[in-house]
């Protein structure tokens, strides 16, 4: 039996959702870590696009910032930022948008802007970056973040990037292309949108995690699917690839990879 951390479980579970050959628009931090793990394991032909311009980046270490030289050097091509958003994202060529978040709600809407009132914020977060249009225009979206009462909230102070809006067919009414968020992957579980309501419900618990733990760490009355699976534990290959990636990153940057 391999031992692994809850963070490793989260990263591995997220990486598995990325199909080989898919074109993925990658956010920095946890999404970048999971997307590169996918590329180094089951999805060698995944195409990673970063908003700074690299298309087909194949970094051997994780970037600390969205535009590290490693991304440009290993990419198939590097294009200006305007082009990334105009031709590639808005043009409908992105299969998967891979996003992190400061906060998420039950409809997969994301807040990365403020905690508290916008004009008198308790905490001023970094802001939108590329997320609103990635969430809007990618064919589907994966969200990865650690689960807690503070991050999984009943009502967002600010919707930076939309998931299913107010639920139901609200996303469709907004005229957004793409299926929206198809999974939220956390250190405790995997949530997926329920058919019809588009409310995120737990469909898979990571090994050893109880329903009570998930309830305690969720700010809304979280529901569970009729059949809740147990996430397959990370295997030796996945863990080795992840640990080697993190070790290479730490040796290069003196830290384990940005998690903004």
């Amino acid at each position, binding site marked *: 039996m391999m031992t692994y951390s809850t963070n490793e479980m989260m990263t591995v579970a997220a990486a598995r959702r990325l199909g080989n050959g898919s074109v993925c628009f990658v956010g920095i931090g946890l999404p970048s870590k999971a997307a590169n793990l996918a590329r180094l394991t089951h999805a060698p032909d995944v195409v990673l696009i970063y908003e700074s311009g690299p298309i087909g980046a194949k970094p051997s270490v994780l*970037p600390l910032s969205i535009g590290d030289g490693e991304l440009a050097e290993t990419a198939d091509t590097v294009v200006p930022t*305007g082009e990334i958003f105009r031709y590639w994202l808005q043009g409908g060529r992105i299969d998967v948008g891979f996003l992190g978040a400061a906060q998420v709600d039950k409809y997969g809407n994301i807040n990365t802007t403020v905690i508290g009132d916008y004009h008198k914020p308790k905490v001023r977060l970094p802001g939108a970056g590329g997320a609103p249009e990635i969430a809007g225009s990618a064919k589907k979206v994966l969200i990865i973040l650690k689960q807690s009462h503070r991050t999984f909230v009943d009502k967002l102070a600010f919707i930076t990037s939309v998931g299913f809006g107010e639920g139901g067919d609200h996303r469709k009414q907004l005229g957004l292309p793409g299926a929206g968020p198809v999974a939220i992957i956390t250190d405790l579980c995997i949530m997926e949108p329920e058919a019809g309501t588009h409310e995120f419900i737990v469909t898979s618990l990571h090994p050893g995690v109880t329903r009570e733990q998930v309830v305690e760490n969720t700010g809304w009355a979280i529901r569970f699917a009729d059949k809740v699976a147990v996430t397959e534990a990370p295997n030796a290959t996945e863990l080795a690839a992840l640990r080697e990636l993190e070790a290479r990153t730490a040796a290069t940057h003196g830290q384990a990879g940005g998690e903004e």
Partner: protein
Amino acid sequence: MAEILTLREAVQRFVNDGDTVALEGFTHLIPTAAAHELIRQGRKDLTLVRMTPDLVYDLLIGAGCARKLIFSWGGNPGVGSLHRLRDAVEKGWPQPLEIEEHSHADLANAYVAGASGLPFAVLRAYAGSDLPKVNPLIRSVTCPFTGEVLAAVPSVRPDVTVIHAQKADRKGNVLIQGILGVQKEAALAAKRCIVTVEEIVDDLKAPMNACVLPTWALSAVCLVPGGAHPSYAHGYYERDNRFYQDWDPIARSREGFTAWIDAFIRGTADFSEYQAKLAAQEAK
């Protein structure tokens, strides 16, 4: 035609108090030296535009140079918050900072529109987002052909754009390589443009299709080796990740920040003296 000037002369001649100034560079080629010079010369009431405010604007905001910030993502990449930006937004120190907030796609398109001589940019964006509720400049247009409602945002047209690049020739033609961000668009959207470069050479040896900004589209070219530090210049030096980490405790307190800029920026004559002082401190 671009004149080859010192950075001090270029800032004196081309940047005025109250100007709208864009310092661009998407992680790569960030014009840090120019930000230092704006602080040394005590520029005030600036409207700063930048997709990722980053350390350069943390410096300018904390130094009291800025009245307003137009941006789309404000953080210390790979580290955390910009403490001077947050202090200005959350507590009004050293003065209140008006913010005008967009997304990356919006600002990138707004620069393209500015460079194209158009009054606004159109993009598919913001449906379901709260950003239009807090930024009245994010509006909409209806497509005259399909009826689709699309986001419309004003173009960005800075009084001055400052960018950093790898090299220029002696006439002031500039070659940029690597991650280009919105530098070309920001340069061409502006009324005046200052480019700091790592090197001035006889012959650019620019490959076909390279990003070259011709001298006649620029105001000034300034030789400032290392001028993008702590960001990087592809082919010249790498990102100084340690500096980004070290910035966090420096910027965390008002006193620590002020002492740092008094010593390292206001207390030095130019960027090369700053670099020497920084190197001496690191050697200790």
